[in-house]
């Protein structure tokens, strides 16, 4: 096995510890405390509190010291590591819930705070990697944490109240008449869908494509008078479907 470890398996100390020798227990604990750090390393960058995890990990290590049995035929570390992880897992599952939720909320607040601070420092909008570096977090975590919209803080701190009317779509679409037109088009489409096929075609070509009754008549192989009649009936239907405000 090519792996080298900084901790030691000291059989004699273990036996003494299990027989109630407090000093031996302490020695074996400090010789192996590195295992806890190894395990904790994996939780770096998560929302868990390291101090807490260390406490729990210590319990796992002490349990391993007390319960280790030489008949297992494995090295102490091989036995202790899963015990430490197991203890931490139990802790996370028993106790974690409220905590993590709270810390997500805190995280969200922190991100907002870092964003504001960096905006001030840099004089521009900070990018995600700058926020991540500032908080010592993963960029991806930042992105996902933003999904937990925690509005109250948001509103007081961030909404400055000014109108942010920028953007090309807005310029094209968002004038009041335009929006009302969007709505009308929606209503019109709905109404149009209630006409029969021929009526739809006549209306679309006459009013949306500006074609003449004569042309449509020719295409459909009917007389212009018939087209005129279809058009009139269709408009009548539309009016009753839409009310007077749209097609005056």
């Amino acid at each position, binding site marked *: 096995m090519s792996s080298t470890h900084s901790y030691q398996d000291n059989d004699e100390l273990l036996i003494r510890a299990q027989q109630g020798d407090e000093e031996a227990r302490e020695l074996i604990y400090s010789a192996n405390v590195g295992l806890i750090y190894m395990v904790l390393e994996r939780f770096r960058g998560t929302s868990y509190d390291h101090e807490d995890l260390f406490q729990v990990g210590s319990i796992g290590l002490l349990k391993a010291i007390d319960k280790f049995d030489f008949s297992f035929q494995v090295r102490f570390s091989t036995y202790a590591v899963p015990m430490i992880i197991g203890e931490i897992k139990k802790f996370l599952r028993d106790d974690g819930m409220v905590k993590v939720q709270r810390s997500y909320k805190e995280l969200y607040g922190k991100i907002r705070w870092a964003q504001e601070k960096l905006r001030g420092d840099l004089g521009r909008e900070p990018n995600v*990697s700058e926020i991540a570096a500032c908080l010592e977090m993963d960029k991806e975590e930042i992105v996902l944490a933003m999904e937990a919209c925690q509005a109250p803080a948001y509103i007081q701190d961030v909404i400055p109240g000014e109108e942010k009317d920028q953007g090309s779509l807005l310029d094209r*679409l968002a004038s009041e008449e335009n929006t009302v037109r969007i709505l009308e088009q*929606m209503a019109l489409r*709905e109404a149009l869908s209630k006409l029969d096929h021929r009526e739809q075609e006549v209306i679309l070509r006459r009013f949306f494509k500006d074609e003449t009754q004569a042309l449509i008549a020719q295409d459909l192989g009917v007389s212009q008078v018939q087209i005129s009649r279809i058009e009139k009936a269709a408009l009548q239907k539309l009016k009753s479907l839409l009310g007077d405000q749209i097609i005056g």
Partner: protein
Amino acid sequence: MWSVIKGRWTSPGLELRMNVKNYVRFEFSSMPENVSFARSCVGAFAAQLDCTLEDIEEIKLVVSEAVSNSIIHGYNGSTDGKIEVMASIFDNGSLEIIVKDFGRGIENVEQAMEPTYSSDSSRMGLGFTFMRSFMDEMDVISEPGQGTSVRMLRFFPSQNHQAMA
């Protein structure tokens, strides 16, 4: 398959940024639950770029629009269709997103892309308009009965690039 599509889309401007630095490709079923999954993932991937949180919000929006369209229109709401998303980051800091379905396809792409056009009277017809507004390039390739591919590109000049320019 993707390379074919890319070939078809290659434009003179695109050749300059053809060096893919990183990519992710994913595939999922046309379940509405996956819309939020898809936008989160592409958002998380885009975080590798030199971009702001606001940029990420916009990326998430366009992915949401394209994937929703595939589910709603492409597969008519049926949940057993397949959707593929490919996101690539190029050397010059641009992000390409391709959303592809194998659904019904679009008869008249030009009409479909018009602001406020929708084939469904209860919808706003804003999806394509959002995609076009928030991205620097957008193309749609669609074949009735075969499916639809939406390719979007957004250029993120990095702080460094800007400084050097």
